[in-house]
């Protein structure tokens, strides 16, 4: 195992996992959802809004507002701010930046928040103006969001590595069974592999249950020093390691791996753990194929072994490889940038033993990952973090 030369996140912790329950459509604004999350953070921490001196926010639907406009909206006076537009990698990036800010003393308590609304036509509007390459070279082809891009990636992956729809189906079906234990999940009814297989096609080989449902919601957590957490009597999780990588493997003709694969040794080296040591994994699951790719790129199996890995493991909360214990975006819903936070916030709950009905027994160490920004033909942003609970 290689050794890490990076500074460890000594005495920096995460606390107060917050989820504002999702709704399919909301007449409220993104600002409303972000406001609810901030309120839950201060209530959960037993602090006042003025105690927050660092603010990191992600949202697709906040319109003209970046973080700075939101400080005035919410009456926050902060000395450190960041607005992170990295889609599904936003939470990992937020955690990384906030942790270093706290470690360096630039901020004492950082609120990391993602929130998005979902109006009747706002998802299509987000797609339409997603990025320049998307506008110029993807959206005019009827792509309809990431569906077409992931269809191409999934089809190539299936052909190259022998994955079958049933293998993707197992991921989706298992997550649904996890979601049935999560009262906040939008999907409330069981999903069978037969239903998965016979679902209507969206963009071959992507079918209905391969897709996340856009919705409104917010997720958040606080980053602070161990001492501050202790003074507030907050259960807190350690940040053992993180990685982040953007626009990796640009020469791969079709995406078969994400940036994790470049940095995975460094992730485990910094954390001082092996993949086997993890008690659960929360992957970014905008489509099952991406979760499968992460099983490889995050070091649980070799490239191309993802399908077999899925076949060999029980991915439920009580299974041999607890995965996306909340139900993931596939069954909880994708609340815009909140989708990036879903796994990170769930991982925080898990290591703190606060996950309630979705709690993995004796979960001490877990991994959460992020993936985002289909700018053109592939997802550009990737990241991962390994968290440890107080007993670890």
């Amino acid at each position, binding site marked *: 195992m290689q050794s890490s030369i990076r500074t460890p996140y000594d005495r920096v912790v995460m606390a107060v996992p917050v989820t504002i329950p999702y709704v399919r459509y909301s007449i409220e604004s993104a600002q409303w959802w972000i406001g609810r999350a901030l309120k839950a953070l201060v209530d959960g921490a037993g602090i006042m809004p003025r105690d927050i001196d660092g603010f990191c926010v992600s949202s697709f639907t906040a319109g003209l507002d970046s973080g700075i406009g939101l400080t005035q909206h919410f009456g926050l006076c902060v000395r450190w701010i960041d607005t992170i537009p990295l889609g599904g990698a936003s939470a990992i990036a937020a955690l990384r930046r906030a942790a270093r800010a706290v470690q360096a003393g630039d901020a004492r308590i950082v609120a990391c928040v993602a929130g998005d609304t979902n109006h009747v036509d706002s998802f299509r509007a987000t797609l339409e103006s997603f990025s320049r390459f998307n506008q110029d070279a993807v959206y005019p082809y009827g792509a309809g969001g990431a569906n077409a891009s992931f269809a191409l990636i999934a089809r*190539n992956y299936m052909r190259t590595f022998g994955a079958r729809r049933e293998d993707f189906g197992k991921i989706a079906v298992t997550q649904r069974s996890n979601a049935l234990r999560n009262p906040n999940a939008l999907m409330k009814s069981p999903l069978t592999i037969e239903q998965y297989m016979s679902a209507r096609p969206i963009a071959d080989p992507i079918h209905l249950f391969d897709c996340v449902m856009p919705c409104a919601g917010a997720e958040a957590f606080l980053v602070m020093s161990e001492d501050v957490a202790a003074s507030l009597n907050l259960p807190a999780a350690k940040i053992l390691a993180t990685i982040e990588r953007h626009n990796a493997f640009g020469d791969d003709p079709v995406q078969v791996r994400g940036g994790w694969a470049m940095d995975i040794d460094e992730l485990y080296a910094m954390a001082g753990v092996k993949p086997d040591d993890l008690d659960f994994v929360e992957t970014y699951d905008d489509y099952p194929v991406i979760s499968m790719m992460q099983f490889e790129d995050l070091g649980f199996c070799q490239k191309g072994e993802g399908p077999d890995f899925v076949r060999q493991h029980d991915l439920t909360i009580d299974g041999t490889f607890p995965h996306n214990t909340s139900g993931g975006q596939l069954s909880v819903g994708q609340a815009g940038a909140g989708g990036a936070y879903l796994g990170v916030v769930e991982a925080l709950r898990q290591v703190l033993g606060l996950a309630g009905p979705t709690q993995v027994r004796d979960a001490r160490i877990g991994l959460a990952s992020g993936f985002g920004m289909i700018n053109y033909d592939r997802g550009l942003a990737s990241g991962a973090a390994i968290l440890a609970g107080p007993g670890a």
Partner: protein
Amino acid sequence: MIEPIVKPRRKNPLKRTRLPTSPPRARSRASHGFTRAAAEGRFMLQRCGACGTFCYPARDACPTCLSADLVFADAPRRSKLLCETTLHVPADVYFRERAPWRVGLVAMECGPRLVAHLHADCEEGGPVVMSFQLDKSGQAVAFAHPERETPNMTDDRQWREMTADPKFRRVLVTNGRSIVGQETVTALKAAGASIVFVGVAEPWKPFQGEDTLRAMEGVEIVPLDIGDEKSVADLAADIGGKVDILVNTTEHVRAGGLLDRQGTSIVRDEIDQAYLGFVHLAQAFGPAMRMRGSDGVNSAAAWVNILSVYALANWPVFGAYSASQAACLSLSHSLRAELRPGGVKVVNVFTGPLDIEWFQTVPPPKVAPRAVAAAIVSALKRGLEDVFVGDVAEDIRQRLIANPKAVERELGA
């Protein structure tokens, strides 16, 4: 293997006409390099002047060396279809009502990867040939074709969205007296137009070629004097709802500029015929065409202007005529923008002096009327927007790119 399209039956007048919708239209400014390529039927990609890298999508700096010297250059079209998908539930209305729709990711032999619309005969993993096309929004999109010709390949339904193929369409050719008009009728019939209406002013006056025209099956001579607003409106009232392609073959050529003419009567004639004739036609036929841009196999598809290349640079020997053509060119850009919501293309065919009596004293090379007709049909089949016919037109086009001032001086010499 493409099933051949079938000739549409007579339309049920009680049925609602499906309104045209457009695919997404927004593009970056740099991306309009592809619009230009598509308009002329060229395949161009950005190429870095410093390191030679081809790149895509359109950028403002080279992704290999960061040079800003990115130039749209003709690029090899050969490519491989890496993977494909069929969209069943697109988000956009245009695609939703055309689903299932097939797209793919292709790898150019020269480097870049393109998301592209696929001709149905493209096979995953196989070689494909790329073009840029103007879609129904008027913007450029990449289109992958099979490497070799396949049966009925121009009937491919995704390809038909990119073109204005005359097959089974109904066409109005505005001037049957001119040789260009007659050649155009012949070429359109050969290309499968179901009917060609041919406008003739004062039809009781006989003209050369009349017998041949009248003998052709699926050709109907209609009274049309485009200088007369009422004549144009009357014809539109009669056939306006079934003109899918309009080819304006108006021809009014007189030599001379300003100083050697007395008064404005000749200039006025030029303006009446070329410019106001265009206005009359557009106002009478344009609105119905715009409404019918999505009306099935024989939807309204294109408006064709034949313009002198001297619309782009005045040739003082035919100075006032050049100006009338420039006015028409400008108007065509307005028409293009106004027909765009209907997905109806405006095709400008630029030609040098034609081999007709009005250019009798002009030395060769001159353009055969048949070549103009062939260029029109080719432009419709390929979905082009700007076409240059013959050596003189091509010469002027290239010289204008190089140095417009030189063209002005040399044409005025």
